């Protein structure tokens, strides 16, 4: 569903943000990208969403080249950012309706909004609340709700648990679980090794633009993922 092929990005200032990175995220899979700041995790997402062009290589969503046919590719993907920012003067329902319409979902009924709010763990009355009164956790949940309303086969999440309190983070992981069960391909970047271990089917470890390792669930399920991560980082350093 999500395919990264020899993807390279060098910025104008010469910084190599991605260096021939290749991997795939299949349907019903959660792929967590781990790495320090500047490792190239967000750059990958930016290229997938056509915010920036790659220097070389290709990124595909549902077999559509994200750089050549971005509008086609973006039909099959939703994006949840680290800090979901919506229109503060709008009520939650207006925000949901706006982004759903952008995703081509028109004519949604009250029941659809109530359902999605329930699914993400937000009270129905929050639909009538202005976004400026939402906490960060509530905004993240609403971000998920927007992604759910679009109902795409792939979801990109850029450090979605950052800044969430433990309860919200727990609920968020439960939500991800459900999305995986629905067959969504989820690419999530995170610093949170603990939660990555809990939810990921595979993890990719990135360092200075390179994907230094990919580990399957079986490999870290009963091991200490942090140790694996540190080991891979040291190996990459010495290489």
């Amino acid at each position, binding site marked *: 569903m999500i395919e990264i092929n020899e993807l390279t990005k060098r910025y104008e200032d010469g910084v190599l943000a991605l260096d021939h990175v290749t991997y795939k995220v299949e349907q019903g899979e959660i792929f967590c990208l781990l790495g320090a700041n500047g490792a190239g995790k967000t750059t990958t997402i930016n290229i997938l969403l056509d915010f920036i062009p790659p220097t070389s290589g290709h990124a595909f969503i549902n077999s559509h080249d994200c750089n050549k046919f971005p509008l086609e590719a973006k039909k099959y993907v939703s994006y949840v950012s680290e800090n*979901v920012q919506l229109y503060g003067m709008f009520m939650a329902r207006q925000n949901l309706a706006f982004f759903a319409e952008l995703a081509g979902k028109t004519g949604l009924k009250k029941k659809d909004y109530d359902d999605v709010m329930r699914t993400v763990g937000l009270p129905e009355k929050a639909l009538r609340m202005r976004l400026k009164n939402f906490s960060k956790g509530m905004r993240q949940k609403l971000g998920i709700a927007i992604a759910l309303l679009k109902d795409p086969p792939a979801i990109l999440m850029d450090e979605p648990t950052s800044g969430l309190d433990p309860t919200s983070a727990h609920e968020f992981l439960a939500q991800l679980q459900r999305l995986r069960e629905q067959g969504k391909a989820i690419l999530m970047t995170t610093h949170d090794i603990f939660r990555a271990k809990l939810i990921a089917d595979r993890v990719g470890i990135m360092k200075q633009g390179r994907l230094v390792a990919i580990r399957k669930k079986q490999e870290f399920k009963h091991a200490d993922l942090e140790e694996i991560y540190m080991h891979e980082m040291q190996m990459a350093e010495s290489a």
Partner: protein
Amino acid sequence: MLKTIIAREFLNNILNLRFMIGLVLCIVVTVACIMILAHDYRQEMKDYNARMNLQDEILDNYAKADRHRLLGMIRPQKPPERFRPLIIGILGNEDLGFFDYNPLPILFPPLDFLFIVTIIMSLLAMLFSHDAIAGERQNGTLRLVISNSISRTTILFGKFIGGTASLIIPFILSLLVGVLYISINPAIQWDSSAWVELALLTAASITFITLFYLLGLMVSTFSRYSSTSILNCLFLWVLLILVIPNVCPYISAQLCRIPSIKQTNRRDREIEMHSIEAAREYMKESVKEFKLKYGALFSEFESMKCGGIGSFFVFGRDFDPKYRKAAQQRAEADPKFKAMMDAFREEVEKARQELIRIREESDMLWKDLETKAALQTKLAKNLACISPFANFVYVARDLTGTGLRSLEYLEQTKDEYKRQVGSYADEKINDARKKNPELEEESFLDVSDRPRFVFKEESLRGKLNAILPYWGILVLFNVVFFVAAFAGFMRYDVR
């Protein structure tokens, strides 16, 4: 998709505090300024009617059979411009003056429709659009919008249409309130052409307002932060609204230099003095010759105060009426006296021609100044076209008959009327002379059937021909700013 973006942009703007501030400001300022200007209009109308009545009274009682004086008494009176309740015009009538002189408006000029559009609405437009892109990038909403399958072109169009629509609302609402006031005010009588002009003025104003919205949008697509965007917008606003239109006359004055009025006046006086001196010298010589040639006969002529001194004739005066008869009788009785008088008249005519010849130089001087001044004004006007402000002012003023063009038009109609009155006066005086050969210049002349000056607005077609190029430039500015905004947004880094 476009509809969704438009609706969101529109809703987002009208929920914003700046919309409410803009709406209240527009309505308050528009209503206040229309009320004040309508009051001034009534005052000027009263003033105009008073002047008309006064002129009628004077002409009905004191019109003389003297062409020069009669033409001086029949002066075309222009009524206040019909758009006076909306726009303060350039005063086109030298007779126009308030009976109740109030110096305060000089210190604090009253606001008008042009001020509302060019200052308030243009600032409001930039306030609405400066953060349309940069602000959304800063908030993070732009990433989320662009992560959907929607083209940047659609987003930009949607923002433009939605943003402009939300901006036009305060303007249209306040204008409607003003129009309502005008339509129910019995002192203001507008015909259908005035309403058509108002509709066109509204359309031109919207073109101007969208131009500044697009300018703000363009700046926004080249800025990372709304704070830098608003600063850049203010800089451009000052440049386009205040600097360029005010600097252009100076540039034009440097490029096309003309002598000052003072210098020209001084030179004119010099020429006049020279012409008088030349005519006097000529007549002095002639008088000397006549004294030698005719002796006592010429002294007798001089004693009749006709010749007094020859220069007396040169400056447009003739025999004193009470001596004219005596001189004529003397000439009829004595052919020698008549021959001398005719010869002297010829000399006077020669001196007069010499004086006219010298004074032609003075006419040339003023004509030259007029031509150069017109050229300078035209150059300044064309230079100022690089500012949208100037183009809008030309459109608004020429359309409503409150600008430079209306002055030229007024002068043309006045000249036409003066020609008409001139022929009327000639005909009237000739008829009166035929009826009464003894008619004196001081005699009363009945001019109750004189042609009246009725100021007619220029045709809409004529006005449209004049304003379309400037309106076209405003549209061109819109296109240029949109294309620039488009180019900026296509390359815009949404991260």
